[in-house]
């Protein structure tokens, strides 16, 4: 599992790293309880300031995605249990976003569904 940082990107460094970690956590690539590297290690590897990674972890913690404890480091938080209605709402929102992207690309509904099934396989 690797996070990357593009210094030439217009996206701020902390957002680049935060988005990648949030995606990995959200998709289950980083399961709950996974220990994340220390702020200093991640900052050194990416060549960014420690404050940048500290902000990433703070924002992920504020979103409930990670838990930071003194002397225990930062771990991926347990996923909150959602009600059926909440799950349905979030899926509907994600579907709308996905369909909007598909339309932007000129793809019809069947193509979009096929792409979804392919991704699931």
């Amino acid at each position: 599992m690797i996070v990357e940082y593009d210094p030439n990107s217009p996206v701020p460094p902390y957002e680049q790293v935060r988005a990648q970690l949030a995606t990995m956590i959200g998709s289950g690539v980083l399961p709950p309880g996974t220990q994340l590297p220390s702020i200093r290690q991640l900052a050194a590897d990416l060549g960014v300031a420690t404050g940048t990674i500290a902000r990433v972890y703070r924002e992920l913690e504020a979103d409930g995605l990670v838990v930071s404890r003194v002397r225990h480091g930062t771990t991926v938080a347990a996923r909150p249990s959602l009600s059926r209605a909440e799950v349905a709402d979030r899926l509907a929102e994600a579907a709308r976003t996905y369909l909007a992207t598909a339309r932007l690309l000129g793809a019809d509904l069947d193509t979009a569904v096929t792409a979804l099934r392919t991704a699931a396989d």
Partner: protein
Amino acid sequence: MVQLVYVTAALAVALLVYAAADGPVSRARLGRFARRHALWLTVDNGPRVIAYLAATRRWRAAGVTFGFVLYTLPWLAEDRFGVNFTYLLAGWFAGALLAEARLARPVAGPRAASLLPRTPARYLPPLLRWALPAAALLCLVLAGSHALRPQPPSLTGAAPSPARYAVWLGTTAVVLLLVRLATRAVLHRPQPVAAPDVVAADDAVRSRSLHVLAAAGTALVLYCVVAELALLAGDEATAVVLIMAGAVGVPLLGWRLATRPWTVAAGAAG
């Protein structure tokens, strides 16, 4: 004139040691490194390991040479010759620290990071993780026992001075601090995002560095412990035996600890 010959000879030996250490890394040494860390050497990771072995040997040899010259030169000025193992070990330790500082260069290429935490537990066996704190605790306990109860006369007939215990405790504290800082620097040295064999070599190099730092630090602190025990010994014979045993046994123990094999658990690829 005789003194000048001694000084010249000492410097010549020192320079010879340094020059010999600056030669190419032997295949046998490379093989030992690979066996200790169960590392499969490849065309891609070999140069990195060779560069590491060459750099660390150069700096550690320079440190030993410095320790030798630092102790021996004043003796030669008095037409005497002496070698102090503590100076040699301290010089070697200083060289090891400098080598690690020299190795802490930023990696070239795209900026990327593995999400696998690099912790001492991954790179060191439990024995080496706890040897230095245990030795430091022993040093503290012995100094405390000196403070709490009257001491027998020392070899010179005078009671052991609290200042001497303070020096050993201070030395122990400095060694602990230096090893801790160097360990953090080694762990936080940027890791290249590369093929698994290159990452495995990088992990092996880190593990070797941490082995050496922990073992040398432990040996230095054990020297302080031996010196305290010698002062606490009631008679001269026991003190001499302790000092002699320490002079031989402590470096051997340090060497055994530093060369312990350890395989770094591979991280998740990708």
